[in-house]
């Protein structure tokens, strides 16, 4: 019964968030439109390459980066902004005084983020695929989906750590999460190979889950690599996820206690 209550509570966050998506549908249309245009713009950079075979590969390389970054950004933003959103709506106190475990609350938000991210990425994928003439004959799409699933916990962990910032600083915290997001974008090889980064930035690339996820997704789609040859990257992602999820929960729970001591857990900053 207790487990059922926790599952029910977890579902509350998924249902509520999708209800909000439905009610803010015009915002959603704008977000998706921007995502599509962004992916197309980046893909079109590839058309500047003269060699036809290399051109097709480059377009796909860039589009994979745009799609994957779109998916991971949605997960990261939804989790990291969950506190900002509640504060903005004025429900933060009500949610935090409910008799549920924090892990249930956060898992519900993460589950929504994954489902919502998948839905948005699927829409962008359909739009982009109908714009560019892709050849996905040799692509291992199941392998690519597996990479998405395995990479999600690592990004959720990062999102949990970033969610602490709006909890600690109501005024500036939400903006500060963009710094984390920007660093991941810079070092993860979203639109280029990480080997082009300056030597002093390379170590950060190997710490970012985005690097392994993008490497694996590109191997699966561009080279049609089998799941067995994706294992090194998948193991790295599992390892990072196993560190970041408990670390994120620990950081969040420590920050929540700090907010309760200092009175920052309130609606209006």
């Amino acid at each position, binding site marked *: 019964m207790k487990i059922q209550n926790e599952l029910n*509570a977890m579902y509350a966050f998924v*249902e509520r968030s999708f*209800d*909000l998506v439905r*009610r803010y549908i015009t915002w959603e249309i704008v977000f998706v439109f921007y995502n599509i245009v962004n992916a197309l713009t980046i893909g079109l950079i590839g058309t500047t390459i003269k060699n036809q075979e290399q051109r097709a590969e480059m377009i796909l390389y860039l589009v994979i980066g745009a799609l994957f970054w779109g998916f991971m950004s949605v997960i990261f933003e939804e989790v990291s902004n969950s506190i900002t959103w509640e504060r903005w709506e004025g429900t933060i*106190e009500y949610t*935090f*005084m409910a*008799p549920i475990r924090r892990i249930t609350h956060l898992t519900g938000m993460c589950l929504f983020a994954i489902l919502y991210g998948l839905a948005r990425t699927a829409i962008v994928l359909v739009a982009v695929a109908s714009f560019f003439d892709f050849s996905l004959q040799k692509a291992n799409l199941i392998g690519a989906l597996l990479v998405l699933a395995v990479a999600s916990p690592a990004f959720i962990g990062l999102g949990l750590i970033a969610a602490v910032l709006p909890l600690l600083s109501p005024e500036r915290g939400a903006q500060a999460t963009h710094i984390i997001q920007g660093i991941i974008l810079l070092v993860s090889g979203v639109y280029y190979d990480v080997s082009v980064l300056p030597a002093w930035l390379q170590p950060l690339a190997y710490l970012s889950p985005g690097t392994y996820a993008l490497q694996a997704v590109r191997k699966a789609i561009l080279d049609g690599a089998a799941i067995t040859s994706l294992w090194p990257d998948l193991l790295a992602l599992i390892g990072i996820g196993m560190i970041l999820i408990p670390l994120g929960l620990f950081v969040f729970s420590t920050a929540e206690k700090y907010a309760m001591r200092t009175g920052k857990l309130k*609606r209006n900053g």
Partner: protein
Amino acid sequence: MLTVNEEKKTENHSSASQVAVECRDVCKSFYEEIKDSRSWKNLFLGKKREVKAVHQISFQIRRNEVFGLLGPNGSGKSTLIRLLSTLLFPDRGQLTIFGHDVVRDQRQVRRFINRVSVEASFFKKLSAIENLRYAARIYGLNTSEGERKALSILRRLGMNEDKAQTSLENLSRGMQQKVAIARALMTSPTLLLLDEPTTGLDPKSKRDVQEYVEEVMETHDATIILTTHDMDEAERLCDRIAIIDHGKIVAMDTAEGLKKQIGTASMEEVFFRFTGKSWEDVLADENTE
């Protein structure tokens, strides 16, 4: 055979000795930045000053009692409510709800309480039903049972089902407050924190809410802490009233007892004598906030 009300009253006699809330020497301070105090000497972090929001407050509230908190702006009422809501940790002292410590036994305490605050804390784009369904789920209620209970409370408060399907941003403040009350009572809390539930309501909505609170006291096993800006409301609903000023309780008794202490027939006079502030000034302060 006893009616529900008579049964309730009999139970109340036996439970009157039970302590619902115990607050012992509770202190809570905040630190606010002193204006223009940032300089290179303090690494631009600024200097902070201590603000004692709640200072060595002690009281007990009996089970099924309606306990009123009156005080001017910044007196510590809201801090006290947030301490009771488990949203703040006290710096010192102990606060227990039905014997459970609000810091140590946070989750157990949260099962007992619910709150109606002065601002409508809802997802305003969502309808009342969507907000109530969310509340039912996070409070571990069966959603259909929760919805049924909430709708029956809303009907009792004069709100029909069509309104319950409307997005909350399109409802009046009075209607929103009725939804807040339905949401709080849907979970059958044994400690209900009513933080200015009638502030800003039109006279009819105010009367509806006050009558419903009286009905709840008759029919539910609930202890209520009420903060209000309405002296008549405090007199009408509260068994005892505490006047709080500068984070301290300066007087605590029944409304009659307080009036007797001062030798006046007016609660406004009581408030003035204990705080040095006229009630009109307090209301004006609230309106200019």
